[in-house]
């Protein structure tokens, strides 16, 4: 493996890599603004310049110092070179670039959303000088509403052009461009256009400063109050890795979490802004038809078990059914199916079919044709998991329509339904199941089906529990609990854990062990991935 020395530390890498990328992968910090591993290289911010020694072409045993500073983002790492980012020349350049970037910067950190996660702040502490020598008037540039989700503070912009390259190379829509020249230049949208594509929110993440900000998140929370929980997107079958940023039980924003195999650095706007359902229209209490006042979990669950046992005893096997939701974790569905099959060995199992919107939306680089991102048409995170559970238990399965007929004919008398948080086909479910004598609805939200339920149980959304989702290609990924469950709601898995009268404390990891013992060994060891970025060499930009 080739090795170079960066400030006295050994850095090794594989394949063709730039010095900066090799250092980032090895955990050695070099400052950079315009470089982004997912975008082409422009080498224009100039803060990553380093001094370099390389083998003398005439005498390979000897190292000679390159007379000029070299951009580490644009210079290929080579075996045996030495890189100095802390030499006086490199440090002088870092100081100069920091000073230049700040002379026209408004320094309005107290009112800037980016404060706390701003590269200008971080690098100013680390590489900048304590005070400015700039006594002139600052250039003033306007704030601009450039798109549905994004607002641009031109005066904070450092012209790294990451956003411009994103719209050209990743989304392929090219809405953003650099206008003007020199110190008057600004990022802007073309006249009459706006930054409106399904991936537009990503420009906010890749902006290293507070120039591109999220309208939805604007002024809602200081970022240092936020806790980030690694999670998986619950909105499509893509299995996008995300961070849920939350504070005091409230989600404020969703950010992408790097995963080279799944979503790289990006997520779609549907995922980014879809989390609102967690805090809206929630089902807060247990309601039992005919009962007044507050109901308790333990009593209600006991009653459910008793009722189901009676129904099976009277109607024989096959008189109950379980409708799973592809929005729940696989282990939860496993517990649910296990419970109903213990009571009724021929209980009907099925999954509520997820919503499918048109075709998969593929985003390619217009010049290279490389696929950057795909928005999946299937709008549920875990249909694969539901299928796996159902095929594991085998036996009686049916579709929602079939179940409706069985209900009409009186064959099925009791149904347990887990409802999607965003129940797209609720009227279909109501039509099929509205007349079931015993209808147990597990739902996070109020809705029509909840109104028809014999017993409605409040359950958690994905953000309030732990579990695993399986994406369209069967990749099993764990999501962690971000916020505390709402009032009386419980994770779906815990409900069935209690129904089966297993010992008191439910944990998703333990449920997965149960699955592993039952033969689903894929679930024995599931942990958060520790990703090592494997980045291919990027092309140079064509701006």
């Amino acid at each position: 493996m080739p090795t170079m020395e960066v400030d006295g530390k050994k850095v090794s890498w594989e394949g063709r890599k730039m010095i900066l990328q090799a250092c980032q992968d090895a955990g050695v910090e070099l400052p950079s603004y315009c470089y982004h591993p997912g975008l082409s290289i422009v080498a224009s911010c100039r803060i990553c310049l380093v001094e370099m020694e390389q083998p003398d072409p005439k005498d390979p045993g000897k190292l000679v110092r390159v007379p000029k500073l070299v951009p580490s983002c644009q210079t290929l790492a080579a075996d045996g070179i030495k890189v100095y980012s802390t030499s006086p020349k490199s440090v002088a350049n870092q100081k100069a670039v920091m000073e230049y970037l700040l002379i026209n910067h408004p320094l309005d950190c107290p009112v800037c959303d980016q404060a706390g996660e701003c590269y200008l702040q971080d690098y100013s502490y680390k590489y900048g000088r304590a005070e400015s020598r700039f006594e002139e008037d600052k250039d003033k540039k306007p704030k601009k509403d450039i798109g549905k989700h994004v607002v641009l503070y031109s005066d904070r912009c450092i012209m790294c052009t990451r956003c411009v390259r994103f719209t050209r190379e990743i989304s392929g829509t090219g809405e953003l461009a650099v206008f003007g020249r020199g110190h008057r230049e600004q990022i802007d949208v073309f006249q009459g256009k706006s930054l409106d594509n399904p991936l537009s929110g990503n420009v906010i993440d890749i902006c290293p400063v507070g120039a591109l900000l999220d309208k939805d998140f604007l002024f809602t929370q200081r970022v240092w109050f936020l806790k980030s929980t690694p999670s998986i997107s619950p909105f499509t079958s893509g299995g996008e890795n995300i961070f849920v940023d939350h504070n005091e039980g409230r989600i404020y924003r969703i950010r992408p979490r790097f995963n080279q195999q799944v979503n790289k650095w990006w997520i779609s706007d549907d995922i980014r802004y879809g989390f609102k359902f967690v805090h809206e229209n929630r089902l807060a209490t247990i309601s039992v038809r005919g009962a007044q006042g507050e109901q308790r979990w333990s009593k209600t669950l006991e009653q459910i078990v008793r009722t189901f046992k009676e129904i099976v005893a009277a109607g024989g096997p096959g008189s109950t059914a379980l409708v799973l939701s592809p929005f729940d974790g696989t282990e939860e569905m496993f517990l649910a199916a296990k419970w109903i099959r213990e009571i009724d060995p021929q209980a009907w199992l099925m999954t509520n079919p997820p919503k499918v919107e048109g075709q998969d939306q593929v985003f390619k680089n217009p010049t290279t044709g490389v696929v950057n991102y795909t928005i999946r048409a299937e709008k549920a995170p875990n249909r694969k998991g539901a299928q796996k559970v159902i095929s594991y238990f085998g036996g009686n399965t049916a579709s929602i329509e079939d179940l409706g007929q069985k209900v009409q004919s009186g064959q099925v008398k009791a149904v347990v339904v887990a409802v999607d948080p965003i129940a797209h086909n609720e009227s279909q479910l109501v039509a099929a199941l509205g007349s079931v004598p015993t209808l147990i609805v597990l739902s996070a939200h109020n809705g029509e089906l909840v109104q028809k339920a014999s017993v409605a149980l409040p359950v958690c959304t994905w953000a309030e529990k732990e579990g695993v989702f399986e994406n369209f290609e069967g990749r099993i990924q764990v999501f962690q609990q971000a916020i505390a469950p709402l009032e009386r709601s419980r994770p779906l898995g815990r409900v069935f854990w209690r129904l089966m009268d297993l010992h008191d404390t439910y944990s998703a990891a333990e449920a997965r062990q149960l699955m592993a013992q039952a033969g689903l060994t894929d679930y024995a060891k599931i942990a958060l991935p520790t990703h090592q970025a494997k980045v291919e060499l990027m092309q140079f930009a064509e701006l």
Partner: protein
Amino acid sequence: MAFPGPVLLKRIPDDPAQRKLFKFKDYVATGGYEALRKAMAMPPEDIIKLVIDSGLRGRGGAGFPCGTKWTFLPKDLHPRYLAVNYDESEPGTFKDRYLCDYDPHILLEGIAIAAYANRIAISYIYIRGEYHYQAKILEEAIQEAYANGIFGKPHPGTDIVHHCYLHRGAGAYICGEETGLLESLEGKRGWPRIKPPFPAVAGAFAKPTIINNVETLACLPSIIINGAAWFKSMGTPGSAGPKLYGASGHVNKPGVYEDELGIKMSTLIEKYCGGVKGKYKAAIPGGVSMGILGTDQYDAELDFDIGRKYNVLGLGTAGVIVMNDQTDLVVMLRNIVRFFAHESCGQCTPCREGTAWLHKMLSRIIAGFGKPKDFDLLMEVALSMGIGPGTTICGLADGANWAVKTFLQKFPEDFKSRLKSGQVRGVLLSSAAGV
């Protein structure tokens, strides 16, 4: 060293009243396109060797050996392009304009020779946007050349048809930087490219491309006709051949004059320009980006070694700007820096922010708010940018770097006398800082 008489300007008489535009038939009647015919009879390799032997160095500013540049084209990689750099935007430089005002075919003949020697498929003449009159002349000349079979025909012995197009820029100095020119030619923002790859390998439309200055190409016909030894007989060993000198500023007869390379600046001023108006103080040797020659450097030899000998960036375009002792060099420098701040493409941080800062600082000093520490700050900001220190992609910032650096080094008193406290002479309007 002997200059036999005008080479490039042989069709342009000194007397303005007698100058006229040479159309195709006038050009041919005065020996035009003879060199092309002679070149077509030679193998292309011989032409390249001849150009290398002649010691022809690029006239656009950097002085890179022309023939050597041609040899960088990868073998057997086609199509190849020739981009003619006619984006003559450097303040003080107007030699190419003068040449094509009257004798456009000398350029077209040079293009045809270079295209034949290098098996070029398309030649683009990238002309500065403001040169609309010259663009019209060239457009007509290209039509004439097509009509007379100079362009639009395959190179002898190949099936590569050579075409020549005129491309007008939109008025940006940065598009005179070779890769900025290529970007602009491709219809993009004229932001210089990071190298490698070099244009000879992946230039216009990612194809091998040669970029030559107008004057460089205009030298080719005479080299073909008269040979390398004749060409080398002019100039100095390191800087061969004739050169167009532009003279402006405080001289009695400003204009474009031709002589061999290596003549003294004093010769240029006194022999051709009728001497300095007033008393000589300083001069800029070749466009404002080259820095300034001091009062004691009046006799500087104008050749490609000038940079090393007289502490300027280089000969540049040999557009000499002469200043007499009435010149306020602070105001002059502010004007130069204003130009760079205005023309900075905005790609690299040091140039984008640094040039504007220099301009604002100098505006403040001129308004009388200068402070003694500004001297060092001007110097530090200037020295931090350019491809010299390696902090920018292209050489635009080097122009500002060298201008400020040499002004401060060679005329420190002009600045220091303005940087004493209590010298308020005016009001600093914030609009003065707007470029």
